[in-house]
């Protein structure tokens, strides 16, 4: 959802280190993003030390308590501590975000390279990708989840399938424009073998746009996971993901606002952090696009 369709960036050599430092100075927001993101990762990793009460611990006695010194974010309908569950939720959100980003970039890269280089595969695969891209991503994920068992792996697979066509399309456009570049023509003319051209000349040039795209996919996957869980087609309700906590608060939001508010804020901040890092990366890696955006 958070992805901005970007034009195929050309002529991007691997940036010298100075450029990244330069971009950091010019974009203080990226530093904010990195700090927030690091904080989120630390929270996810050290979740067992941060929570005050076991996030799965049921206790009807302390049902629907308002936020207090004891229960920082209050307790839900089953008396579970919302703060502890929210801290745990960071794990799910980050796992889904990172896994989907890595998987869809990997698979999309594979299809993108093939379609960019093999004519026959191009028409066939891109037809399928065009078809998949005309299904709104969340609906596609819903359709997949409605027929499988609710589990974290299935959520990751469903969101990945929805994201792959966009990556494939990006890689394909980069490959198509690279093929016309003099350095690739020179390599072909001097008899460089096919796989060597692909690995040494084409692949390195897809890294920068894919890094940027991967960050946006991570942000979008975190939102999609929360939405899927929220409407009951995501991670199983036993796992305290942010979407699940909010789903549990749905029917009670007029009296127990805190069940929805706190995980919602954490989700927004996490997505914001990833988006800020993505914007910074885009500006650092692709000065041509940065001027326009």
């Amino acid at each position, binding site marked *: 959802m958070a992805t901005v369709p970007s034009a195929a960036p050309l002529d991007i050599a691997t940036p010298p280190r100075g450029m990244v430092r330069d971009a950091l100075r010019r974009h203080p927001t990226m530093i904010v993003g990195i700090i927030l993101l690091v904080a989120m990762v630390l929270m996810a990793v050290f979740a067992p030390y941060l929570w005050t009460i076991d996030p799965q611990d049921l206790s009807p006695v302390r049902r629907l308590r308002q936020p207090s010194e004891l229960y920082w974010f209050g307790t839900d309908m089953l008396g579970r501590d919302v703060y502890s569950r929210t801290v745990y939720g960071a794990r799910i959100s980050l796992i889904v975000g990172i896994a989907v980003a890595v998987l869809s970039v990997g698979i999309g890269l594979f299809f993108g390279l093939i379609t960019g280089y093999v004519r026959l595969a191009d028409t066939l695969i891109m037809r399928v990708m065009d078809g998949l891209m005309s299904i709104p991503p969340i609906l596609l994920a819903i359709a997949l989840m409605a027929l499988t068992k609710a589990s974290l792996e299935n959520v990751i697979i469903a969101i990945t399938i929805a994201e792959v066509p966009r990556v494939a399309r990006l890689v394909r456009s980069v490959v198509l424009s690279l093929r016309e570049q003099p350095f690739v023509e020179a390599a072909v003319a001097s008899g460089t073998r096919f796989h060597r051209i692909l690995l040494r000349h084409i692949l390195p040039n897809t890294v920068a746009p894919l890094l940027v795209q991967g960050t946006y996919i991570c942000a979008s996957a975190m939102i999609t996971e929360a939405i899927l869980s*929220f409407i009951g087609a995501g991670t199983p309700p036993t796992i305290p993901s942010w979407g699940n906590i909010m789903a549990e608060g749905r029917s009670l939001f007029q009296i127990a606002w805190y069940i929805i508010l706190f995980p919602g804020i954490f989700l927004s901040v996490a997505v914001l952090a990833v988006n800020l890092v993505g914007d910074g990366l885009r500006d650092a890696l692709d000065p041509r696009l940065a001027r326009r955006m």
Partner: protein
Amino acid sequence: MFAYIVRRLLATIPVMGVVALFVFSLLYLTPGDPAVIIAGDFATGDDVARIRAKLGLDRPFGVRFGEWAWAILRGDLGISIFTNLPVTTLIGQRVEPTVALTLSTLLVAVVLAVPMGVLAAWKAGRWLDRLVMGFAVLGFSVPIFVLAYLLIFFFSIYLEWLPVQGYTSISQGFWPFLERLILPSVALGVTYIALIARITRASMLEVLSQDYIRTAEAKGLAADKVLVGHALKNAAVPIITIIGIGIALLISGVVVTETVFAIPGIGRLVVDAILRRDYPIIQGVILIFSAVYVLINLAVDISYTFLDPRIRY
């Protein structure tokens, strides 16, 4: 021109064919017996057999797909497993709220986002630009349902200005209808506004650096004439494109927005269908939403020829 439209219309057939094939084969691709999954945990053997026969899972894939696709072409989307009513009837009952919600969001978004992008490009690098771009980043980051609840908490529960949830048909009066659409439209529209504003700004920046803009400014044309008459007109193609592509955001968002605001639309229908694993409904809704998306983007493609006389087919 006419030949072009016909050709583009024909080009949507393979795309919709892929969508249909994908939506249909999901039943076969997923691991496990779909009839058992759809029937749920408490189903008897009879229930499973009934569902299997209803979905035609006991017959070969090719035959079944042919029948299914032929039925769809005749406007028959199948029968809901849970309610035993035709899917087209169920969707028909839910069309009005969804159309009202998406149209009002679309209208509000375009009216707000385009001027925002134009002003941001005009004042590039200044505080107004930063404000708009800051809003855009936030708009991308706050998920629809989080924003929706924040709006409800503030405007409905704290200020008590607007109703919390629900939908009233326009036939029961314009204000009650509008009153219940304001918050959902805002919640649904923010990501879309952020997207359009960002692309409008980018496209305008590109145009504003052209020589003819400098000429227009040099001959003393007023800023608003330059911005709207010269620049925006030439920056229109990418903006219209993103308005079309962004419809996917609205369609995805409708599912969530209707759930939060308890609006009885198509999005709500699909969410209820997920919980009951009523697969014919899910298939039907995805097909219809995808067809709408493809047709809107077809219209966008065709509109290029009117916006930019240089584009000829």
